[in-house]
C-alpha cells in the first residue's frame, strides 16, 4: 500500500531556522536524511521523494476570471511548512507509522530530535477486493 509522507518543519523565529544551525548540526541532519533515503531505497519501499524550497518562495495560485493565473503569497506568518515529501510503498500501516516516526525524529541543533509533525496519507491505489460483498462491487 502506498502512502504520501509529508514532513512539516517548524518555522522557528520567522526564518528558515536550519540556516542558523551550526555546521556540524546541519551536516548531521543532512547525513540523517541521506541515510533514511538509502534505507528506504534498499528496502524496496521508495516510490519518490522530493525536498521543497523554503516558504519564502511559495505562491498560492488561482485562476482569475479570464483563466489566467493570479498569485498570492508568500505567507511569512505560517508556523509550519511542508519541507519535503515521500511516496512510499509498504506492506502495512504499522510500517508506514514506523517510517514516519523515524523521519520525525531527525536530529536538530545539538543532535536533539526535532520531532516534526509528519502527515501520513494513504494514496488512493488500493485494489478493489473481488471477495468484497457482492452489492458493493
Amino acid at each position, binding site marked *: 500500500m502506498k502512502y504520501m509522507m509529508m514532513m512539516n518543519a517548524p518555522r522557528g523565529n520567522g526564518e528558515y531556522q536550519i540556516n542558523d544551525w551550526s555546521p556540524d548540526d546541519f551536516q548531521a541532519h543532512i547525513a540523517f536524511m541521506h541515510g533514511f533515503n538509502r534505507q528506504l531505497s534498499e528496502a524496496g519501499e521508495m516510490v519518490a521523494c522530493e525536498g521543497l524550497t523554503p516558504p519564502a518562495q511559495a505562491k498560492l495560485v488561482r485562476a482569475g476570471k479570464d483563466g489566467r493565473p493570479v498569485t498570492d503569497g508568500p505567507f511569512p506568518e505560517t508556523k509550519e511548512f511542508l519541507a519535503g515529501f515521500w511516496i512510499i510503498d509498504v506492506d502495512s500501516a504499522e510500517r508506514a507509522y514506523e517510517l514516519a516516526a523515524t523521519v520525525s525524529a531527525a536530529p536538530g541543533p545539538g543532535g536533539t530530535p526535532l520531532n516534526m509533525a509528519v502527515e501520513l496519507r*494513504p494514496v488512493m491505489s488500493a485494489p478493489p477486493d*473481488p*471477495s468484497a460483498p457482492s452489492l458493493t462491487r
Partner: protein
Amino acid sequence: MNAKLVTDRNTSTNCPEFAEHLLRELAPQVLGVVARKCGDFADAEDALQEALIAAATQWRAAGVPTNPRGWLYSVAMRRLKDRVRSESARRRRENEVASEREHEQPFVSPPDAELGLMTDDTLVLLFMCCHSALSPSSAIALTLRAVGGLTTAEIASAFLVPEATMAQRISRAKQSIKSSGVAFRMPTDDDMVERLGAVMHVLYLIFNEGYASSSGPELHRVDLSAEAIRLTRMLRALTPDNGEVAGLLALMLLTDARRAARAGRHGELIPLDAQDRSLWDRQMISEGTALVSSAFASGSAGPYLLQAAIAAIHDESPRVQDTDWPQIMALYGVLKQMSENPMIALNHAIAVAMVGGAEAGLALVSELDTDQKLRGHYRLDAVRAHLYEMIGDDARAILHYRAAAEGTASIPERDYLNLKAARASARS
C-alpha cells in the same frame, strides 16, 4: 512492449508474441535446473534473467532456436560462469591469494533425465518464492520474476513503482531466502498444506492487483490477472488432485469472466447487480464451473472452492433476479465456519438480506460492529448503505454511503459510493 502490441497475431514461430510466450513458459523450468546445478538460487535467478533478456532480443531478430530450452540453459550457465569468474577474480585481487580454481565445465544441454525433473522444479520454485519468510510484496515480486519470467521493468510498471525499487525488492527477497535457509527441495508432507496455502495466497494477491488495474487507461501494464491465472494453471497441472487449487483457478476464471462488464467507459465501477451479463466471458464461465463441479465431486471443499461455487452461481444466473440467493446464503454459512476473513461474514449478511429481507441483514451487520478486524471498516458502512436503500430509508443510506466513500482507498469505489449517495439525495 509497444512493438509487441502492434504485431499481428499469428502462429509463426518467428512471431514476437510466440517467442515471449515460450520464454515465459520455459523460464521456471530452466531456472530449476540451473539452481540445482549451481546450488545458489539467487545467482541462478540473476543468470536466468540475463539469459531471458538476451533471448528476448536475439530470438526476436533471428527467430526461435531449434532447442529453445537448451539455448536458455546454455546461456544462463555461461552467464553464471562469467559471474563466478569475475567474482573469484575480484576475491583474488582483494585477498591477493589464488585460493580457488575455477570449475571448467563444457556447456551442454541438460540431459533428458534432468528434463524430467523440470516440472517438479517449477513447483519447488513456487514454494520457494512464496515462502512465509518473505513479506507479501517481496513474494509477489519474486514469483512474477522467477516463475512468471517477467522482467523487473515489467513488474515495476505493473505496480507503478520505479524499476530500481522493484529490483531492490527482488534482491532483498532473495537475501531473505538465503538467510532463512529455505532449501531448494520439495516440502515434506507435514509442511505441504501450509506451504501450498502460502503459494495460493500469493497467486490470489497477484490476481487482486490485476483486478484493480485492468480497467482504465493503463493498457501498457502487464495484465496481472491473466498472469495469475496462467501461474495458477501451472500449479493446477502440477497438483491435479488438489481441490483447493482447482477452486482457486475456478474462482479467478469466474471472477475475471466479468471483466468486460465491471467498468464503464470512464473506468467507473459497475456493481455485479447492474452489469450487462451479455458481456461476461462464457468460455471462462464454463471452464470455471466445470472445475467447481469436478472438484466438489472428488472431495471436501475448502474456502477457495466454496467461493468459486458462489461465483459460479452468480455467473450462471441469466438475470440478476434469477440469482439463487438461498444457495449462496448456505455456502456463505459454511464458509463462515472455516474462514477468518471478515468479508465472508459481511457477504453472508447480504445473502441473508436477499433471502430474508434487509432487516435480517442489518441485524447481522450490527453483530459485526464489534468484530476486531472490521470495526470502523468502510465496508460496514457500504453494506449498511445498500441495505437501508433496499428498505427505502434514503436518509440513512446517504449517511452510510458518504461514510463509506470517506473510508475507501480505491478511486473507482469512492466515486461509485459518492454517486450512490448523490442519487439517493436527488430522490429524497
